[in-house]
């Protein structure tokens, strides 16, 4: 039998040697991919071959769905049409207000020489399938770099932020959802953002006055990391005062890896967060434009035994219900990190910091290219 002969005349290295070789090669590739993101080009090359095949495989399902849609009842279409009409009317009013706000914003930006935070253009894409990886919350859309998409672009649907473009093919892109484990979005609490007037919290008027007098409070609220540092140093009531006198609590929404939940870690127990609060993007990362709805707070568990509250939110978008999403192009330049000597109103120092900022960005870019 052929089965026996094979073993008498084995060619090349032994199975164990092969296993060692290929095993090490696989591990090396994993490290190269995970640690250094070095194999993006291999991914793009292989995926450009696979994508047409996958598109072809989508076809039977697509046909079935199209046929199903053809026989949709008239009632449902009418109801849908009415809902959409209502929405158009509502959005028309909001759109007009937004035009006004955008004009004001442009004015302010011209004065402050700040980077534009609001994005106008986007690419509409269709979600074609889930990623076939049971460990990842990702969807595949039918637009890629040939349609002008850029890595890192924010993706939204009709209700809120869906996620971020994390991998690009020629005609398809992979969108990592906000619920993916450790996927983070900088957010702020909309309710406290709208109340711009600094209110003195009852019970700690003196502390509040103190905190509003000290300038670092401004910086502290601008990022959670800095806010935590302050919260760790000072007793809880002061931290509360710092937060409450600011317009808008900033935080980072972090995905949990489970469907339908987003965590809000590192929020002090005394912070002003309530069930039902809407979390919108704060725009400080330069990736997500400010003001997009990310999630709604569902659980606020303030246990004084811990230094941070346990806050869980439900994502606003429902990528399994929507077929179409919009990819917003990221800003060309991220908002620069504030330097300590960036004086307000002092023109020459502002220019200086601007040039310094550019030099820093250049250095960063060079570093990235060297990688």
């Amino acid at each position, binding site marked *: *039998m052929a*089965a*026996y002969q*094979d*073993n008498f005349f084995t060619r090349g290295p032994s*199975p*164990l040697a*092969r*296993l060692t070789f*290929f*095993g090490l*090669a*696989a*591990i*090396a*590739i*994993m490290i*190269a*991919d*995970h640690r250094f993101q070095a*194999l993006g080009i*291999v*991914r793009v090359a*292989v*995926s450009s071959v*696979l994508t047409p*095949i*996958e598109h072809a*495989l*989508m076809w039977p*399902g697509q046909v079935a769905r199209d046929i199903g849609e053809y026989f949709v009842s008239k009632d449902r279409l009418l109801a849908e049409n009415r809902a959409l009409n209502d929405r158009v009317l509502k959005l028309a009013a909001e759109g007009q207000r937004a035009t006004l706000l955008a004009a004001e914003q442009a004015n302010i930006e011209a004065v402050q020489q700040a980077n534009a935070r609001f994005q106008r253009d986007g690419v509409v894409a269709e979600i*074609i*399938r*889930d*990623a*076939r*990886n*049971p*460990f*990842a919350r*990702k969807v*595949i859309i039918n637009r890629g770099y040939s349609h002008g998409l850029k890595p890192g672009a924010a993706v939204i649907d009709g209700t809120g932020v869906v996620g971020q473009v994390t*991998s690009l093919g020629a005609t398809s892109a*992979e969108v990592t959802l906000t619920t993916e*484990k*450790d996927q983070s979005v900088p957010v702020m609490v909309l309710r406290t953002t709208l109340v711009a007037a600094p209110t003195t919290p009852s019970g700690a008027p003196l502390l509040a006055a103190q905190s509003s007098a000290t300038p670092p409070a401004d910086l502290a609220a601008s990022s959670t990391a800095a806010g935590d540092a302050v919260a760790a140093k000072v007793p809880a009531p002061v931290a509360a005062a710092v937060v409450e006198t600011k317009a808008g609590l900033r935080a980072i929404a972090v995905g*949990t*890896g*489970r469907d339908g939940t987003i965590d809000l870690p590192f929020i002090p127990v005394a912070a002003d967060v309530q069930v039902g609060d809407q979390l919108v993007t704060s725009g400080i990362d330069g990736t997500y434009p400010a003001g997009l709805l990310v999630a709604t707070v569902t659980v606020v568990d303030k246990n004084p035994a811990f230094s941070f509250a346990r806050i869980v939110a439900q994502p606003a978008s429902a990528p399994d219900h929507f077929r179409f999403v919009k990819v917003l192009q990221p800003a060309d330049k991220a908002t620069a990190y504030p330097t300590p000597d960036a004086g307000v109103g002092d023109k020459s120092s502002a220019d200086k910091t601007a040039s310094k900022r550019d030099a820093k960005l250049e250095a960063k870019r060079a570093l990235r290219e060297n990688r």
Partner: protein
Amino acid sequence: MRLVLGSLLVALLLNLLPWSGWALLLKPDFLLLVVLYWAVHESRSVGQTWGFAFGLLMDVADSALLGQHALVYVVAIFLTQQLRIRMLHLRLFEQALHVAGILFVAQLIYIGLNLSLGRDFAGLALLFGPAVGALLWTPLHAIAVLPRFRRRGETVML
């Protein structure tokens, strides 16, 4: 050889179907199953090199970390090569039990790799994928010997 390539291609296409939800968790890795089949029956040509190449292909297709399927496939083929001669003496049902064991080890490596990357366990259903795969071993054998059976008119021992 045409049969080998063709069946591998079909298995790849099956893997590339838009699986999701429960089906995704329960889905056996068709490609791995067919590669293992040929590692038993065409051990001269199909070996770890093929497993490595197809593994990388699946990594890209599944948008997983590059190399994890490759490692899983190579280890599974190594185990199959060790058990191969023994399996050829057994009946199909007993072969399938061996395959279930190999697929289970492969799945454990896959899950372990993903957990070590800090991901959450996706669900217990993942552990049943290998069993489903092993159930497919007999039909797979039947399909694979069908052309030979027809051409030569031989009786094939099932």
